[in-house]
Structures are given as C-alpha cells and as structure tokens.
C-alpha cells in the first residue's frame, strides 16, 4: 500500500512541476509590458524602469522561473499587478465557496448518476430508460451557465422559491449545487449505463446467477463493482471539469469564487493572477486525480494484487494468516 501511495505521489509531484513550468513558459508570450498593467496607461519612462527593477522583470527567464517555483513551494504565489496584493490569501479566501458547491454538486450528482445509470442499464429499453437517456444526454449537451440561468428563471423569477444570489444560507446553495449536480449526474448516468450494460452481459454475471445469488446482489456486487473503474474515471473528470469551469456557474450566481478571480485577472491582463490561479486550479485537480488513483487501488484487482491490499483480509478469513506474514505479498 505504502509503495503504491509513494509511487503515485512522486508521479503527482512531477506532473505538477511540469505543469507549472509549462504555464510559466506560456505566460512569457503574453504581449505588452507588464509594467503598463501595473501603472496603467500614461506611465512615465522612469516609473516603468522602476517597476521593472522592483518586480525583477528583467532577470533571465530561468532565474525568474526558479524563483517562482521556489516561492510557490513556500506558499507564496506572488503579487497581483493590479492590486499589488499577495495572491495566495485571496485564492484561499475564495476556496471554500468554490469547494462547497463542487463537493456537494459532485456528491448529489454521483448518487443520482449511479442509481439512475444502474436502473437504466438493468431495465434497458424500458420507458424509464428512454426518459433517463433523454434527460442525461440533455444534461450533457446543455451549457452549464445556461442551465443555471434556466434554474434561476424557473425557481427564482417565476416561482420565487429559491434565491439566486446573496448571502450564503442553505437556500442559496440549492441552485448552484443543483446545476453542478445535474450536469455531473448526466455524464455519470451515461457512463454508468454503458459500463453496466457491458458488464451485465459478461459470463461472470451468469456465473453469479448460477450460484443462486439474488438479482440485486448480482447487479451490485458483481456488476457495479466491475463496472466501477470507468465510472470513477468519469467522476474524476467531472470534478476536474467543474473546478476548471467553476467560473461559469459562479458568474450566473454572482459567487465570488476562484473562477471569477482568475477571470478578472484575464480581463485586466494581470498575468500573475492568471498564472497562479491556473496553477492553483491544476494543483487541486492533481489532488483529485491522486485521490482517484487511491480509490482505484481499492477496486482494481491488478493494483490490489501487485501491491497486496485487500489480500490480507481474505487470507485471514481462510485461515492463511500465518503464512501471509511470513511470505509478505503474494
């Protein structure tokens, strides 16, 4: 287990580092003089020179890159050109809002998606399946911001049930979470359905039924458990997709989250804000990917048997424990 975690951690750090280098290099191509962004139009020559010196803009690329990475490791993400304020605290202040919606949206979406997908696959071609297929494809085809607006139109403006913007009570979370949840459940339903359809035709499902297992347990412990790897991948992509696209839903509900912060940076050509904001989003996505990798370890027998988890419990049950401790991994 530890070996696997360390392996994934090293991989995660390398990917992240490569991403930072890539993004930093990309930002080198931003046109215009950053000093003008800091000072605004009509800055004097001396001021520009002073800013260049202050921000060490004239250092060679490699020096600035290593300095940026060094600071990043210490938690310093640099300062905004526009406000001259440090970026890291601003990002962390906005994180809870973004994460609350993301986490709840994904939880709701996963629960709905799994149930709907499994039922849809088991009752393939039924009316329920057809309706669900329509809704899930609709959910996957609709732009999230438009869906959010549709919810606002119906539930806030027409029915007056739920607030769209404003201070954060439980009621205020419902619409953003519903938007994210619906979109997540749409893709998760689709993947669960197709993955389950493939699995329930497999011979081992027939074997399980020939053992006299109940339909429910056949579907869940033989079907879903085998179908779960691609579903997990989709859930991971969905979370990352939302973290990336958080700006869209945030803009409809006027939530001052991560996405809006980065977007403001893009609009004002505030390169450090964009760079660090995007690096931060990538960092969170990498963590999600890492957690997903950890989750694979609990379902994928190849990882399990290579690194030996889950094996111990089974051996214990079969009275094989003494040998297990002697021989280590099987």
């Amino acid at each position, binding site marked *: 287990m530890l070996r696997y975690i360390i392996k994934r951690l090293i991989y995660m750090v390398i990917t992240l580092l490569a991403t930072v280098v890539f993004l930093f290099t990309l930002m080198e191509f931003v046109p215009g003089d950053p000093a003008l962004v800091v000072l605004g139009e009509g800055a004097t020559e001396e001021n520009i020179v002073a800013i260049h010196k202050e921000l060490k803009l004239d250092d060679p690329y490699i020096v600035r890159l290593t300095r940026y990475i060094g600071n990043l490791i210490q938690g310093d993400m640099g300062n905004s050109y526009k406000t001259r304020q440090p970026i890291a605290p601003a990002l962390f202040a906005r994180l809870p809002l973004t994460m609350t919606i993301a986490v709840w949206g994904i939880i709701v979406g996963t629960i709905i998606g799994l149930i709907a997908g499994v039922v849809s696959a088991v009752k393939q071609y039924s009316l329920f399946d057809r309706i669900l297929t329509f809704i899930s494809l609709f959910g996957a085809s609709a732009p999230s911001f438009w869906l959010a607006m549709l919810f606002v139109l119906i539930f806030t403006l027409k029915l007056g049930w739920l607030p769209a913007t404003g201070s954060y009570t439980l009621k205020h979370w419902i619409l953003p979470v519903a938007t994210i949840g619906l979109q997540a459940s749409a893709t998760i339903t689709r993947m669960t359905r197709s993955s389950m359809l493939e699995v329930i035709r497999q011979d081992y499902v027939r074997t399980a039924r020939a053992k006299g*297992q109940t339909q429910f347990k056949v579907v869940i412990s033989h079907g879903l458990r085998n179908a779960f790897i691609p579903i997990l991948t989709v859930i991971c992509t969905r979370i990352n997709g939302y973290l990336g696209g958080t700006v869209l839903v945030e803009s409809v509900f006027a939530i001052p989250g991560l996405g809006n912060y980065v977007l403001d940076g893009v609009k004002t050509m505030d390169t450090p804000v964009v760079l660090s904001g995007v690096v931060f989003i990538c960092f969170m996505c990498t963590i999600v990917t890492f957690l997903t990798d950890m989750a694979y370890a609990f379902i994928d027998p190849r990882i399990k048997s290579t690194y030996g988890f889950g094996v111990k419990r089974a051996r214990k049950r079969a009275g094989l424990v003494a040998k297990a401790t002697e021989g280590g991994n099987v």
Partner: protein
Amino acid sequence: MRENELLSIENLEIKYILRRSTVNAVNGISFTINKGERVGLVGETGAGKTTTALSILKLIPEPPGKITNGKIMLGGRNLMETSEKEMRKIRGNDVSMVFQDPMTSLSPVMTVGDQIMEVVLLHNDMSKSEAALRAREMLELVGIPGERYAEYPHQFSGGMKQRVLIAIALACNPKLLIADEPTSALDVTIQAQVLELIAELREKFNMSLLLITHDLGVVSETCDRIMIMYAGRIVESGPVRTVYKNMQHPYTIGLFNSLPRLDIDTDRLEPIKGMMPDPANLPAGCAFHQRCPQADERCAQELPPLTEMENGHCIACFHAIDKERSDG
C-alpha cells in the same frame, strides 16, 4: 415419475424473440437424466445445447429468450411453476453449472476464494470464516493449493480458472452438474486433466452429470448415455455403446465420418455437406433433409418423431426407422 429419475424434460420449446425474427433455439425436446447417470449432449454450435442447459436453471436471458412450451421436472418439482426465489435455492445447490469459457466466467474484482465462499454462504447456514474454510477445502479438492485463496482470477491460467469454476459448482454438493463444453476453451493438454477431474469428483459426490460437448470422443469416455442434437431437436439418443456401435441417423453418421480415426485407414475425412439451417428460418420436415444424402419428399414435409427402437436407442429419421423395422 420413476423412482430413479432426477430430471425430466418434456417437449421443451425455447425461442428467442428478436425485433426482426424469431430464433427457434430448442424445438420440442424430451429427455430424462437418472440419479447418478452421466449423459452427453452432443451437437454443433448453434444446435441449442447451451440454451437447453440454461433452461434447467431458468437462466435463459429473458427477453429475448422465452420458454414457449414444455415442462422441466427436477426431483418431482415442476420448475416451470417454481418462483424466482425458489429457483435461487436450486441454483448452485441442487443444480450447478460449469461454463464454457473460464477466462471470462470469474469476476475479475473478487479473489477466487471469495467467489467460492459466496456460493457456500448462499446455501449453507455458516459463518464467513467457516465458509472461507470450506472454500479453501474446495480449492484443494480441485487441485489448487489453499494458499492461493486470496489471489485474483488474472493470476490464474485458464485451466486453473476452470478448476475454480468446478470448485464453485461443487461447493454445495449438487445433485446435477451441468458442464457446458468445459474444455473447449482450454489447451489440449489441459483438457484431459479437467475432464478427469470432473469424472473423478462426480464419482466421489455421486452426482448426475449433463456433459455438453461437440467432442464425440469425450462422450464415449465419460458418459453412460448420449443424445445428439441438431437444430434444436434430439435426432438420436441411447446408451453410448449402442449408439456408437449401431448409429442410425444420417447426421450422427456424418458426425462420426468427419472425425479422424486411428483404427481405419482413410485418405480424407468426409465432412457433412452444407451448413446447419438458420434457426430463425427452419425448413419444414426434418431439419437435416437439405444436407441428408438419403432425403426424399417425405423428409421435406413431415417431421420424423424420435422413436425408440431397442434398449433405449431412439432415432428421429424415417429411413433409419424403416430400415431398423425391416431388419428387426
């Protein structure tokens, strides 16, 4: 019902109803299996062997499959009237099945031991650790070291997986074991071992065996009785010796002629001409008449009934029946 009878199937008809066509997989077959008897069901791919076997466990995928007619009696119980809940108690416990492809018949995400334990737990009132111990015993019984309990199917070879499947099938001492081409996906060298294992364990547990195969040699070695199936019907059946010595149906003769033999020196094998008819579009009369060298008009119009000749030897062919009668 006769005292000795374990399974009796009467006039069983199974169809797969598809959007475009209806496939007549099994078309009115009847047979019985006695306690402790070993029966071989032989036929080419698509003859309806597996469908017949699955119907005994009521595991025909439904839809599109449907048992449209007939009766399946198991130990005096009519399975056609048995509820799904009752069927679950029969599956794996009274009747169990070993499937054709061991590579895909085990769940890849469970350890092999747990897969055996599952069936033990389902049919016995045992704790998990008792069931696990029983599963370990079963592994050892089929010749796999008990330490491999906690390994996953991908760590096993095809022959080993088939052994695991046999262990699953036998874990609850079933009365009837159905083995659906248990060796056709395995290497030739492994085939004999697996068959031997099945034969040995059948003896030990005193079960009945329904062995489905397309290998006539296997049947002669392991079975008491043989049934030859063609296009969803039994065309010839009887005790293995009788049938092998005195085969009558042209299809059976064709099957034998298409096998290489060591005792007779032939230059070339004689395959049966043509293809099996499309089961969605069966011809009238005898299903074999289009390929039969002896066929005449009657064969194309009337369906020859399976008729008992002597010593339980049954034939479904007008010509063979006529010949036998005039001889006898």
